């Protein structure tokens, strides 16, 4: 599985990124999943690992989407999609929900991002030039969760880096991101610089560096992601 050449189309799918994150969520953690790629994570948490999912509209113990015909309009996630409740789950108000978030009780919030800076600044709520952004719960989650992880495409649609020296978009919160999971890499934000932990199969560190603005640290050989058991490409 050692990467030997750059294979431009061997990027992880959105579901594979979600699967990758799901593998490293630990038993007993309380985790919030943001809109977008993170919402897929619920489908890939191993059955024998109790990770308790928080939804900011007032749910702890959120489960997967119910079968067609069993959707409940009073039971939706942050993306307003129907979900289920796992045994031991419960409901509360949005004020209580964000008390949980702001009070540092959520172990990890996994969010999408438009940009992440090398020191972990997060921009994910507004594209300059748009008249209005949608903040939602992003600012509270970024400021309040014990750890913020980002799950996103490594580059913009036109191939520009989203991991930058400095964010140019309006910030969601400064200095909050600890881990970044993309379609080509897993990167940890450290005090020194972003640390490249893993690359996607077919990608070597130099290829990832080319698509990343700040200088990446890494230790040779960089681990290549093991995608055994991951959802299929399509």
């Amino acid at each position, binding site marked *: 599985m050692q990467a030997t050449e750059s294979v431009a189309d061997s990027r992880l799918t959105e579901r594979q990124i979600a699967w990758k994150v799901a593998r490293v969520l630990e038993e007993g953690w309380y985790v919030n999943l943001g809109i977008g790629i993170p919402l897929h994570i619920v489908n890939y948490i191993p059955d024998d690992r109790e990770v308790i999912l928080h939804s900011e509209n007032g749910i702890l113990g959120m489960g997967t989407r119910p079968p067609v015909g069993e959707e409940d309009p009073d039971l939706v996630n942050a993306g307003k999609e129907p979900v289920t409740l796992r045994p031991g789950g419960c409901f509360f*108000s949005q004020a209580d929900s*964000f008390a949980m978030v*702001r009070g540092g009780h959520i172990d990890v919030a996994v969010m999408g991002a438009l940009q992440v800076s090398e020191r972990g600044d997060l921009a994910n709520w507004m594209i300059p030039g748009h008249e209005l952004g949608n*903040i939602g719960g992003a600012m509270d989650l970024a400021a309040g969760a014990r750890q913020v992880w980002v799950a996103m495409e490594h580059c913009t649609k036109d191939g520009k880096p989203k991991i930058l020296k400095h964010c140019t978009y309006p910030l969601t919160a400064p200095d909050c991101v600890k881990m970044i999971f993309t379609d080509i890499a897993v990167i940890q934000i450290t005090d020194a610089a972003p640390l490249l932990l893993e690359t996607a199969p077919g990608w070597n560190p130099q290829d990832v560096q080319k698509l990343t603005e700040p200088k990446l640290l890494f230790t040779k050989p960089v681990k290549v992601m093991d995608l055994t058991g991951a959802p299929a490409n399509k």
Partner: protein
Amino acid sequence: MIKKVVASVQEAVQDIFDGSTIMVGGFGGSGLPEALICALRDHGARNLTIVANNVGGVQYGVGILIANRQVRKVICSFPIGRRQAKLQDTFWEQYRAGALEVELVPQGTLAERIRAGGAGIAAFYTPTGAGTGAAQAREVRSFGGRECLLELALKADFALVKAHKADRMGNLVYRKAMRNFNIMMATAANVTIAEVYEVVEAGTLGAELITTPGIYVDRVVEVKVERRWQG
């Protein structure tokens, strides 16, 4: 005998006045007081300030009132989703003409400001938004080395909330994730109007299940609708 149940949604909203500030509960379609919103559209009060998490679409939620040009200002965290194609034209036209003002508030700060309004807390310091553009319009202060923003309580003239069941005393119980903004909004308005699926006998809701005590509710209206997922 206390009796807060009124006969119709029309009666429930009849005293809403032009220029009112109105909180509207719900998160997406969950816990959304749909019948009260439609009654308010038919009632026609204008120049409203709406406090709601999201605007919704042209056929549901606060979007109905925007499409009907009854809204002067929205205080929300999620003004308009990309899926709300039908609302887009009306929304942006009013917004660009300055007829519709939007105050964007982070969702947790919005929830907490409403709670503060109901709880008699004048203002509070939260870390949310510190170090971002949101800090420019706020007083910033450090507590224990952490920057926080000062946020003010939010109150309203009316709150439109949705619950599962109520009794004649105005006690409300919710089902699953319906609680969302409804619980705080019920506490933060001069007049709280609750739309419920069913009114039951006082004493049958379960003293430990009542999450909006009747002290917060002025009017209850029963709206029998079939609840099903609408995709």
